[in-house]
């Protein structure tokens, strides 16, 4: 594993390992719920990209804000969310983070600073930048991280807000998760020139990072977060990563746009969890047995949460017109 670990405690390395396993495990269960027709609608798996969300969120405090995407379970877990309310949300139950009203594509967890997933590609670029402006205006040192995909770089909104973030030195980090595809299209077919050069043209310091190396991601993010708190923001990160599943859980036959070999290569030789596990063993930070114990614990948490969510109750029909406006109990009454 490329990166060194000065300034990274064993605890935090093990916590990152656990968080990555929690994300992978959450997604495996979510996928099963879909395949067994127990989940309403479709959902987008984060599997394969765990090092991005974990490496970044482990460098943030609970007060720091993130905005997430349609592929948002990983960001949600990494920012501190629990399995039960997450699965409840995916299943549209009242105990979900959003009382079942948002679902997978709108899952939010404001208690941990997650301002929410967004089903409009690039839709949260303004929100994250606004959260950074808010942090500055309120005189706090909160940083905002905006997660978005390579496909979102085609949305003009990104350039509008990067321009303002640069003009006003806002404490925002743009985290572009370049997983090589937007839906069924390769990134090179939809992105001309260079993505990092686009941010640099606005005078924004930009870095391209191996998104499968959680330690490298975390180390760089720690530095940038500290500098953003000191008023040196904004920053732009292009994190090279890969999604293991299809665009969404229903995208099964995808050879026409993505080769099996390519998938195998990433899964076997670049998997962020396998890599960190190897690093932990090599450096004697934990034993195989201890790591397996972590895995087992997470698997069990997830199984319990799924069982709980499947039995949890749906919101009462009377909730349908609640929360349209904050100051009206029933909007249609």
């Amino acid at each position, binding site marked *: 594993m490329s990166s060194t670990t000065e300034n990274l405690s064993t605890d935090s390395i093990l916590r990152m390992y656990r968080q990555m396993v929690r994300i992978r495990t959450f997604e495996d269960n979510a996928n099963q719920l879909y395949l067994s027709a127990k989940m*309403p*609608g*479709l959902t987008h798996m984060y599997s394969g990209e765990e090092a991005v969300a974990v490496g970044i969120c482990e460098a943030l405090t609970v007060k720091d804000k993130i905005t997430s995407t349609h592929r948002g379970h990983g960001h949600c877990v990494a920012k501190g969310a629990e399995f039960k309310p997450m699965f409840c949300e995916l299943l*549209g*139950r009242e105990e979900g983070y*959003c*009382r*079942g*009203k*948002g*679902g*997978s*594509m*709108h899952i939010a967890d404001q208690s941990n600073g997650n301002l929410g997933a*967004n*089903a*409009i*590609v*690039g*839709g949260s670029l303004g929100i994250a930048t606004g959260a950074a402006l808010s942090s500055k205006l309120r005189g706090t040192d909160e940083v905002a991280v905006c997660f978005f995909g390579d*496909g*979102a770089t*085609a*949305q*003009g909104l990104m350039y509008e807000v990067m321009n303002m973030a640069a003009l006003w030195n806002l404490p925002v980090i743009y985290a572009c998760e370049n997983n090589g595809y*937007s*839906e*069924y*299209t390769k990134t090179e*077919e*939809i*992105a001309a020139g260079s993505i990092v050069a686009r941010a640099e043209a606005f005078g924004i310091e930009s870095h391209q990072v191996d998104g499968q190396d959680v330690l490298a991601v975390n180390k760089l993010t720690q530095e940038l977060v500290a500098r953003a708190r000191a008023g040196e923001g904004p920053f732009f990160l292009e994190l090279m990563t890969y999604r293991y599943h299809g665009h969404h859980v229903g995208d099964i036959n995808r050879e*026409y*746009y993505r080769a099996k070999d390519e998938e195998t290569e990433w899964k076997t030789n670049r998997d962020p969890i396998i890599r960190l596990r190897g690093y932990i063993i090599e450096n004697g930070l934990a034993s195989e047995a201890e790591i397996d114990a972590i895995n087992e614990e997470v698997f069990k948490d997830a199984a319990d949460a799924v069982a709980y969510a499947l039995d949890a109750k*749906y*919101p009462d*029909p009377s*909730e*349908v*017109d609640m929360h*349209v406006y904050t100051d009206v109990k029933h*909007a*249609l009454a």
Partner: protein
Amino acid sequence: MRQITLSQAVNEALAEEMRRDETVFIIGEDVAEAGTPFKILSGLVEEFGTNRVIDTPISEPGFMGMGVGAAMTGMRPVVDLMFGDFIFLVMDQLCNQAAKTHYMSGGKLNVPMVLRTNLGATRRSAAQHSQSLHAIVAHIPGVKVALPSSAYEAKGLLKTAIRDDNPVVIFEDKLMYQDKAEVPEEEYCIPFGVANVKREGTDITLIGTSSMVQVCEAAAKLLEADGISAEVIDPRTIVPLDEKTLIESAKKTSRVIVVDEGHQSFGVTSEIASRINEKAFYYLDAPAVRMGAMDVPIPFSPALEDITVPTAEGVAEKARKLVRGELIHAA
């Protein structure tokens, strides 16, 4: 007659018009190899090539604007907007540019383009992938708005839209893509501004748009069981609107329910009900009843989402009350 799905009907309409007129082309996200997430366009890129079935980056305002420019200069773009909810991203190009160009230029410039998109909830896609936003487009002069209610209309209206020299937005019901209907082999177009009386009746008129036409037909069947004869009318386009057919039916039955999947307030049901009340007032037993989607963002939870959209039973219930002469107010 042969039956095909709405998705196949759209595909046929595009293929036929592209064969007929080489200035017609498709532009949008994942329209080529992928044939869109709904697989509606499968096979078109193979026949017409990547010059006429153009995959774009995720830049709705950008490719919509390019559609306007291409339309102003001799082409007939069919812009593919993956979900109707994304129309909010292209409103400036659609409403400030496409809709006004012909007028602002004193009739010198035309924008013969089609924006193909969809509407419809209950797909468990939540608030940003389930809206039915045709009313806001209909409010802007200069754009036409078509709402196909079956595979037959989907094909005939799309062909007309492509041949129209004005900007046309066509909203397909994304839940009907796999629904089959009789569609003739022979070529046909469906004229704009001509409502379709799906079923004749004498006691009450049910006016439904898009997805709500089948709801009205199902309601009519329920009512038949109660001995109530319902007329079902599908306007097919709301701009232009075939007011005449709607008014005549209202005068005949003296009772009207207007059903549309857009939000009820400031929506399509408001406009149609107003026109009927204005022009058939003295023939009506009761004011035209509006039934739109609830005025709430579409919730994800199935337990809530299904409540937000009008149902056949709900329409039938209101119809019974109307016929029984019970005064009703919009929900």
